[in-house]
């Protein structure tokens, strides 16, 4: 719900309730005022009437809108409303009953006073009041709406600027200075926050690159020294083997470092430039790179592309994503030696035969999680795939059944 709708709704409901209650209260208080006015008139008429009535001829007394009734006992003075039918119309009257005692006989005298005039007056007053209220309400409603909208304009501007703001791009967040204190404050807080974020992000990016530099150079020194030693003629077989292992381990360390830096870069949204391309083209290119490995391992590859799928993402990340999935399928294959790849319905699916997992299936995308049988694998390829899918909000899933392992990427 928009802020302006919300504020209008509150305003409308508050005023409607207020006017409803107010109108009812007003109706009754106006009526009350008119009733007491009528009561006074009736009391004045009573005084006049008491002088007019002849004590001997009470029962035959006649005056307009006056009735005399003989009673057994004494009655009390009271006011009430009553309705008479005159020419088939209901007419509302105010009635005063008072006791009249003469010669030991009790009478009740009723004086009637028509309320028609006052009734019309009340109706007119109520209508006028409601009309005024409606006009008042409408004016207030539009003035309120306009002013809120005007105030919010700066606020919406801030929101749209925030939407455009991207840490990765080199744009700075420049919020307009507002006149309203609260929005001014909001803008300055956001501005401060964005500046800090931007600075931290730059530092982090620099840090990633520095880590790479700082770690790779010592590794290069180790690797070069091992290589140098390996060329000596007077080494025993065992020493040679140790050196070869050292070289391999150093190389592994360096690969791992590179892979972690790559993962950090993905998570930091370092790769932002995207382009549109066909998934099947990309897949074929990547498969070419593995052609020899697949042939050498005698793996049966089944490829089924039903729909040409266009995706929009960073090309380098797309290559890495597909490459890692294919590599995973080759490295972890077993004696059944099969890989099948389907592209269909905006979905990429790769299935390979392979031994049962030695860990729970939901840990498959965790970093450094790898099978016991394949110690050489770095255990980082699938986390790269996961990071890339998370970056683009692709749905990545995995399931295994009967020694078949399937990875599915559902593109948006």
């Amino acid at each position, binding site marked *: 719900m928009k802020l302006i709708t919300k504020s209008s709704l509150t305003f409308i409901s508050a005023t409607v309730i207020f006017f409803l209650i107010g109108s009812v209260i007003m109706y009754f208080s106006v009526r009350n005022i008119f009733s007491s006015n009528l009561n006074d008139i009736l009391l004045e008429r009573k005084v006049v009437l008491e002088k007019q009535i002849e004590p001997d001829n009470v029962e035959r007394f006649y005056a307009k809108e006056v009735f005399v009734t003989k009673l057994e006992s004494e009655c009390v003075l009271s006011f009430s409303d009553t309705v008479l039918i005159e020419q088939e119309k209901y007419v509302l009257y105010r009635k005063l009953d008072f006791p009249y005692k003469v010669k030991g006989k009790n009478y009740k005298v009723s004086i009637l006073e028509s309320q028609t005039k006052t009734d019309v007056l009340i109706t007119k007053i109520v209508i006028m009041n409601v009309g005024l209220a409606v006009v008042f309400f409408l004016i207030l409603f539009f003035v309120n709406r306009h002013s809120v909208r005007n105030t919010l304009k700066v606020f919406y501007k801030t929101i749209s600027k925030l939407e455009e703001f991207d840490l990765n791009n080199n744009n700075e967040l420049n919020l307009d200075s507002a006149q309203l204190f609260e929005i001014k404050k909001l803008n300055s807080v956001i501005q401060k926050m964005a500046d800090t974020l931007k600075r931290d992000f730059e530092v982090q990016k620099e840090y990633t690159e520095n880590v790479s530099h700082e770690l790779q*150079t010592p590794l290069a*020194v180790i690797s*070069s020294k091992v*290589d140098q030693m390996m060329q000596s003629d007077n080494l025993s077989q065992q020493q040679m*083997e140790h050196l070869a292992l050292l*070289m*391999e381990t150093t190389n592994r360390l360096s690969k791992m470092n590179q892979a972690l830096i790559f993962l950090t870069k993905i998570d930091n949204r370092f790769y932002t430039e995207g382009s549109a391309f066909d998934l099947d083209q990309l897949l074929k290119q990547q498969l070419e790179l593995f052609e020899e490995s697949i042939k050498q391992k005698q793996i049966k590859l089944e490829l089924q592309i039903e729909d040409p799928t266009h995706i929009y993402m960073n090309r380098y990340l797309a290559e890495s994503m597909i490459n890692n999935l294919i590599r995973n399928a080759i490295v972890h294959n077993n004696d059944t030696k099969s890989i099948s790849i389907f592209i269909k319905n905006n979905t990429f699916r790769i299935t390979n035969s392979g031994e049962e997992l030695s860990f729970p299936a939901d840990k498959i995308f965790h970093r450094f999680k790898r099978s016991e049988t394949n110690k050489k694998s*770095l255990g980082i*390829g699938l986390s790269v795939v996961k990071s890339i899918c998370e970056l683009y909000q692709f749905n990545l899933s995995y399931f295994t059944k009967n020694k078949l392992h399937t990875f599915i990427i559902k593109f948006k």
Partner: protein
Amino acid sequence: MDNKKHILIVEDEVELALSTIHFLQDNHFTCTHTSTIQSALKEIKNNHFHAALLDLGLPDGDGLVLIKELKNKNQETGVIIVSAKDTLNKKIDALELGADDYLTKPFFFAELNARIKSLIRRLNVEESKKIVINELSIYPEEMKVVVHDKVADLTSKEFSLLLYFASNQNRVLSKTILGEFMSSGYDDYGFSDDLVYTHIKNLKKKLSKLGCTEYIKNVYGIGYKFITN
């Protein structure tokens, strides 16, 4: 006249520079080492270099500025960037400025050696375009191998393996080095060992069929060595 090729090494990590010098001297290069841009500029002014290895993160600036200097002095100087920064942008920047190759740290000397030799062959007009080892001749540009006047029928992978070996004669090349070379820098492990073994086996078979001496020897448990002496 001294026929040795002269290489400029600009590297601020002294130990790495020392190993590199040691290695290159073993391979009959002469080396000049500097660790700053300022001193490198002086060297470029006064000497002729066949190739230069440039580190990018130097104490007094980015090594990229040296590319232009080197190329202005002599177009035939091969420039190889050796950097820990493995980012695409850096590579593109370097290549656009005129660098001929880009090597990411850590690298294997065998790889460096192969690349320097290939660069010198490519850039120097007078340089011989073929490598001759007794009865074996390799023509890198035509991707052709001749043994006893007969052309060997090699796949491109086998050819590049042979060229790699020929560039690194009499050196032990471990399986790690060969695996890295074959997989051309792909980041994960797991299947290059077998692949290397298969390719080398096929290469050796094809060469010996044509009567070639068995230069590629297996170093048990370690890797291979191309032995000519």
